[in-house]
């Protein structure tokens, strides 16, 4: 379970997150929507400790992420992350991209790591691309590679940071399909997204962020049907 209490985040003088309270249960799929600059992506970086915070706290399975001496490398193995700019490692083959972290972080031997990589790549539909370098893949394939790479650490949570925003429109579908598959398998997911269809159909809850504040959170039927906040209604009217 992820528990966020009174989270404050500044970039210099810029107040990015203004006291966020949020719980995410095991097995839940939460979509986070809102305009660019509303703090959605920063929230994810605060959850896995890639960003420091200035107030409040984040706990993952009872462990305080930002406590002094917290073992972030260990913690991040629980929290898979997929980035907007997929960030595949260009100098490694597709299989090595996935097998590297299981080997050097989890300490598996090469054979076991390669097997995990093969399994996860087959899972996201890249089973025939093992020896290829990422440069030869399309954006959608690279993003699925990034998902397989995160899954190879066998995380308990997956954080998606606008996983489809940088993709050509015709490639968005395959990545959303993969995310939907994960959701159906019971993965706990926090998806920062601009894909309203995905947020409505796949999530258990949707959170709307506005200028660093979580304006509203609730089941998709509430957010997309009878939003309480005028900001939410305004945002949704614009993106549709």
């Amino acid at each position, binding site marked *: 379970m992820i528990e966020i209490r009174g989270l404050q985040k500044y970039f210099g003088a810029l107040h990015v997150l203004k006291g966020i309270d949020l719980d995410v249960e095991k097995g839940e799929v939460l979509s986070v929507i809102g305009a660019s600059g509303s703090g959605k992506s920063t929230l994810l970086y605060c959850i896995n400790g890639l960003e420091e915070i200035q107030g409040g706290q984040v706990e993952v399975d009872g462990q305080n992420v930002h406590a002094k001496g917290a073992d972030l*490398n260990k913690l991040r193995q629980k929290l898979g992350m997929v*980035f907007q700019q997929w960030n595949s490692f260009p100098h490694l083959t597709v299989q090595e991209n996935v097998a590297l972290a299981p080997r050097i*972080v989890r300490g598996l031997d090469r054979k076991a790591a390669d097997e995990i990589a093969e399994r996860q790549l087959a899972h996201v539909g890249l089973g025939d691309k093992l020896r290829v370098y990422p440069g030869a893949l399309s954006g959608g394939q690279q993003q699925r590679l990034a998902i397989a790479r995160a899954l190879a650490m066998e995380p308990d949570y997956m954080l998606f940071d606008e996983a489809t925003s940088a993709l050509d429109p015709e490639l968005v579908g395959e990545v959303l399909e993969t995310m939907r598959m994960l959701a159906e398998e019971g993965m706990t997911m926090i998806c920062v997204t601009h894909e309203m269809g995905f947020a409505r159909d796949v999530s258990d809850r949707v959170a709307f962020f506005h200028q660093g504040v979580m304006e509203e959170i609730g089941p998709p039927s509430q957010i997309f049907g009878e939003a309480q906040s005028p900001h939410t209604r305004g945002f949704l009217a614009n993106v549709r």
Partner: protein
Amino acid sequence: MFDYNFHWRPVMRDLPDLIEAGLLTLQVASLAMILGILIALGLALIRLNMRGPLNWIATTWVEFARNTPALFQLFFFGFGLGAFGLHLSPYAIVLAGLTFNCAGYLAENFRGGFQAIPETQMRAARSLGMTATQAYLRIVIPQVLRIVYHPVTNQMVWAVLMSSLGMLVGFRELSGETQFFASRTFRIFEYFAVTAVIYYVIVKIILGASRLLASRLFRY
């Protein structure tokens, strides 16, 4: 000028010695490059990530290495340290001078290489639970090495040619040896002509090996 009589016999007699000196040249240049690359990596990382005295030292190193004649740098390790009672062997003087110079030039190449790797690569590696060191060694540095590969090859060629300055501090590498034989026999033109060919062959071998290595290393 058409009356000059070439005398190649003495050169041919000394050719094995010259080739041996050529190998010494290659050895000192290679060592200087290996040390230079390691130091340059450190200098580049310090200049990118640190403030304070270490950064100041690294910056001074790079400035002096790039902006003063290589010959003066050799003289520093020879006569400069000698003036303070620290007497290095000719071999050590040339090795230290070349290393100092190569490290300074390569540090700037490496700095550019590091800056060319998007910060998001580091983030992606850290998000998988890698330590900063693992991320550097497995993700960032391999990509940097590809970016700087050709500048490094250039520097290696430059190190071989620059080692000829060694003859001015009494080092019997290829040029020093040639100078020694030439002044003994007065067949100066012949000796240096043959030596030029040896340098040319050494550099060609380096470039060929570098190309071969690149095709093995960089498949992407």
